[in-house]
C-alpha cells in the first residue's frame, strides 16, 4: 500500500535557478524528498498549469527539475526565479531498477538526459554513456558528470554526426557485453534502442512519457496498452515493453482520444 502523506501537495519556493544549455533551465528547491532515479513529481504554477517533471538533481535535502521551454507551461516555468512559488506533488512512479554491478549502458536523447542524470551519478565507472542532441548547444549538462560520454548530434556540430543508436550498435559490435541498457529520449529513439537490445538479448529499461493528470494511477490519462505510465512506470523493462502494443504507436490526447504518436507529439509540443 502507498504511504499517502508523503505525496500530498506542498508549496515550495525556488531556491536557485541555473541556466543550462539552450532553452533549458534548472530550478532548485531545498526540501528533503524521498526519491529514486526515474521517479517524477507534478509541478504546479498557480494560474498556469501543472505538469510532470523528472527530478534532475538530487541530494538528501535538495532537489531540482530541469525545464525545456517549449510550451505554455514551460515558457512560464523558465522565467521563474529565486523565491517564486511552485506546488509539488510526488514523487510518483517506479523509477529505474538499478544494477549496481555489471556492465551497463545509458542512452540519452535530447531532454531525455534529465531523468537519466541522477541514475548516471549512481553508476560505476564501467558504464557506457551515450548522449545525443539536435546540435551542440542543445546538449544538456555538457560538463556535469565524471563518466566519459560518447556524444552525437543530428547536425554533427559535436561528436559523431548521427544517432545514438549507431553509437550503441558500434559499442556492441566492438565486443562490449551489456547487462542492462537504460534509455530516455524521443519515443522513436527509445523504440530503436529497445529493438537493438532485443536483437542482442540485452535487458533494457525505457522511461516513457504520456500526458498525465493525477500522477498516482487513477484517472487513466496516461494509459498505454494495459500499463498505467504514472504508476506502473514511467520506467518499463523489456518484458513489459514486448507486451505494450502502444509503445511507439499510440498515445492519448487530453480528451482520451487515441492517436498516432506524430499527432500526439505535435499537440504536446505546442
Amino acid at each position, binding site marked *: *500500500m502507498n504511504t499517502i502523506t508523503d505525496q500530498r*501537495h506542498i508549496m515550495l519556493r525556488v531556491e536557485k535557478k541555473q541556466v543550462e544549455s539552450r532553452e533549458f533551465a534548472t530550478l532548485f528547491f531545498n526540501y528533503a524528498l524521498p526519491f529514486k532515479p526515474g521517479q517524477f513529481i507534478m509541478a504546479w504554477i498557480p494560474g498556469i498549469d501543472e505538469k510532470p517533471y523528472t527530478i534532475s538533481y538530487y541530494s538528501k535535502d535538495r532537489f531540482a527539475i530541469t525545464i525545456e521551454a517549449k510550451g505554455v507551461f514551460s515558457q512560464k516555468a523558465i522565467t521563474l526565479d529565486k523565491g517564486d512559488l511552485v506546488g509539488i506533488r510526488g514523487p510518483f512512479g517506479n523509477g529505474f531498477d538499478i544494477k549496481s554491478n555489471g556492465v551497463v549502458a545509458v542512452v540519452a536523447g535530447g531532454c531525455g538526459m534529465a531523468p537519466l542524470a541522477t541514475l548516471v551519478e549512481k553508476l560505476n565507472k564501467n558504464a557506457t554513456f551515450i548522449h545525443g542532441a539536435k546540435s551542440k548547444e542543445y546538449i544538456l549538462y555538457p560538463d556535469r558528470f565524471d563518466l566519459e560520454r560518447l556524444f552525437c548530434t543530428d547536425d554533427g556540430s559535436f561528436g559523431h554526426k548521427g544517432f545514438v543508436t549507431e553509437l550503441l550498435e558500434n559499442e556492441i559490435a566492438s565486443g562490449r557485453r551489456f547487462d542492462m541498457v537504460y534509455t530516455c529520449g524521443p519515443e522513436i529513439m527509445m523504440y530503436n534502442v529497445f529493438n537493438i537490445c532485443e536483437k542482442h538479448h540485452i535487458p533494457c529499461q525505457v522511461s516513457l512519457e504520456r500526458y498525465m493528470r*493525477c500522477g498516482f494511477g*487513477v*484517472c487513466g490519462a496516461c494509459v498505454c496498452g494495459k500499463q498505467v505510465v504514472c504508476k506502473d512506470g514511467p520506467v518499463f523493462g523489456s518484458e513489459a515493453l514486448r507486451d505494450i*502494443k502502444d509503445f511507439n504507436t499510440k498515445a492519448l490526447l*487530453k480528451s482520451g*482520444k487515441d492517436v498516432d504518436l506524430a499527432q500526439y507529439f505535435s499537440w504536446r509540443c505546442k
Partner: protein
Amino acid sequence: MAIQFLGKTLKNPMVLASGILGNSKDILERIHENGCGLVTMKSIGPEPRDGHKNPTVIDLGHGMINAVGLPSPGYLNMENEWRDLEKRDFPLIASVYGGSVKEYQMVAEFVSSKNPDFIEINISCPNSEKHGMIFGINPQSSHDVVSAVKKVINVPLIVKLTPQAPDIGDIARTCEDAGADAICAINTVGPGMVIDIEARTPVLAFKKGGLSGPMIKPVAVRCVFDIYKAVDIPIIGLGGITTGEDAIEIMMAGASLVGIGSAVRYRGIDVFQAVADEMEAWLSDHHCSHEDITGAAHKEG
C-alpha cells in the same frame, strides 16, 4: 462467489467505478483479470471535450478531490475502442453523459448499438457547469432523462446518482418509475474546495471539485440506505470503499454490488481481488452469503 445481476452472471460483486483508468480494452481487461466482476467505462459525451486544465486531481490524505471535467473523445470518435471492446470476454458498463435530455438520448442510443452489457447514465458529475449533476438533483429532470434514454437502448439501464440531491431516495424512486433497471450511488461529494494558503488560490484549476475516497464513505452508506428503502431495483453501492469490511457495510445498507474507484490509488489495481477476498473471508467467518447481507441493516429490532 459468482453473482447474478440484471440477467448476467458476474464472477464477483466488485465493480470498477466510472472515470477510473479510462476506456481502452487493454486496461479494462487487466482490471477484470485483477478481480473486478464488472467494469465501467469513463463517461462518454456528445462531443470531444478536453476536460479541465491541471491540477485536476489532488490527494488529501483521507481521500481526494478532483475536477477532471468529463474529458471524452466524443461518442463518434471511439471506433478503435469499440472495435477492441467488441471482442471482450468481460462484462461492461458504458457510461454516458450529455448537456440535454436529447444529447443523453443520442449518445446512449449510439452506445447501445456497440453492445455493452449495461448502460449507465451519469446524471451526477459535479465538475461541469452544464452536464451531469444539474439533472440528478431534480426529480423531474431525472425522470425526463431516464425515460428518454430507456426508450432508445436495448440493454439494462443503470442511473448514477449524486449525493447532492436533497432527497436521494426520492430521485431513485423517480428513476425507477421512469424505467431504470438499477441505481449506482454515489458519485463524488461536494463540490468542495482546497485553497493553498501560500499561493492564496484554489489548487484545482476548476477551483472546486468532487470529493472521493475514505472520507466520503459515511455519506455513501447513508445514501444507499435511503435508496434501498425507496426502490426495489438493485443498487451498485460505492463511495470510499477500500476494504472488505467497507464492502460488507455498504451491502448491509442495501447494495447488491460494490464499486471501487479511489481505492485504486491506495491499494493498486489488485484492490478488486483484495476486497473480494476480504469480503469472502468475512462472509465465511459469519456463515452467510452476499444475499443474506444486502439490506441487512434495515431489519427491525
